[in-house]
């Protein structure tokens, strides 16, 4: 074989080797949300969130409740998160801290369990307190969060991967229910469904559908996010 042809063959193989060893570059994630929010002044939010272990090929999927300033970058939230390399959802609490991520996580959510996720100001207005089923799991000073009273209560699902499952199925919907907010220490109200506004971000394939069942005054809130949507 021609000497130059041999060299070319070796070079081609090495070029292929190099190309194959490159890590795929992850695309800028698209943030898709589905759920409901209410513009109510509050000092805390809470709701029950049912269990689901969604398929998350890339990025992350989450379900959470959040007290925030209406979208200006300050928030306190709690729920579960499943990143693409997590075997199952884990508990998380997060606050807004500008260009960085300020998050704490704990253990995996036990299989097939529903939990009451709550984040609220403590009675002396010094800390935002994260609770799961009433137990304190962490706190963050008010100065770190940058909020006391907040303008909005949100109950949502979120994913950075539109191929990922966000919630349950039609027959077995993910539920965020008994959606509540606090106005004073120890005082909680369920959100009046009349005050709920649907969150549907542009580009998302997910649509929240709601039903309001049972509960005192019919304020219990059931939600359902579609799965495997990809074609919007």
């Amino acid at each position: 074989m021609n000497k130059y042809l041999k060299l070319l063959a070796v070079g081609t193989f090495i070029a292929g080797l190099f190309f194959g060893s490159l890590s795929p570059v992850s695309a800028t994630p698209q943030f898709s949300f589905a759920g409901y929010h209410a513009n109510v002044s509050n000092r805390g939010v809470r709701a029950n969130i049912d269990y689901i272990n969604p398929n998350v090929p890339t990025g992350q999927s989450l379900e959470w409740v959040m007290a925030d300033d209406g979208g200006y970058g300050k928030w306190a939230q709690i729920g579960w998160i499943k990143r693409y390399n997590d075997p199952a959802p884990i508990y998380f609490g997060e606050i807004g801290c500008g260009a960085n991520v300020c998050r704490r996580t704990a253990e995996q959510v036990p299989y097939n369990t529903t939990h009451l996720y709550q984040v609220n100001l403590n009675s002396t207005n010094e800390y935002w307190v994260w609770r799961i089923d009433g137990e304190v799991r962490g706190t963050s000073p008010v100065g770190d969060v940058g909020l006391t009273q907040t303008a909005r209560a949100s109950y949502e699902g979120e994913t950075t991967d539109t191929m990922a499952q966000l919630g349950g199925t039609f027959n077995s919907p993910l539920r965020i229910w008994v959606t509540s907010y606090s106005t004073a220490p120890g005082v909680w109200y369920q959100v009046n469904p009349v005050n709920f506004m649907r969150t549907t971000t542009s580009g998302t394939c997910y649509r929240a559908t709601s039903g309001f069942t049972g509960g005192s005054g019919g304020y219990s809130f059931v939600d359902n996010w579609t799965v495997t949507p990809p074609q919007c």
Partner: protein
Amino acid sequence: MKRISWILAGLAMFVLFVLGAFFGHLLPQRLQGVAAGPPEPPQSGKTVDPVLLHARLGLLFVPTGSTVEPPITKDQAIAKALQVSPGLATATSASYQLGYLSDPGAIIESQNGETVDPSVANPVLVWVIIFDGIHNVSSGPPELAQHGVSNETNVSINANTGDYIGEFIYR
């Protein structure tokens, strides 16, 4: 005839390129597989920034002196962290620090009679394993124009019991 030779040569080059890409794709996996047990990232000298950690998440971290030898070794702590979160094996580097981690707000809540998770009710001697090169994206409200990012994940492991406590991300 010459044209056919050129086509065959081109095809051969293409096959060689594809073969190279295939083996190149396998290479990192084979390198990882050589290590026994969960692969540990190379070590870096990074340490916890206690001031920033307190300013961002309200957690207090007080490093211990090097003379403290807890029942759980740092290797056991790293292995536990990787067992709970296998994805952390993709970190570009890791470092570790021994110290007392506490949540002052939770301690106050506990003193006020609230039910508090034992792992945050008192200062706990922990190994903090700092995994670098782990890409994290913030959650937050839908209107957020720019989501926060972080390339570090800290895992705390109880240095007395080996229990997994959780992760914290703050910078």
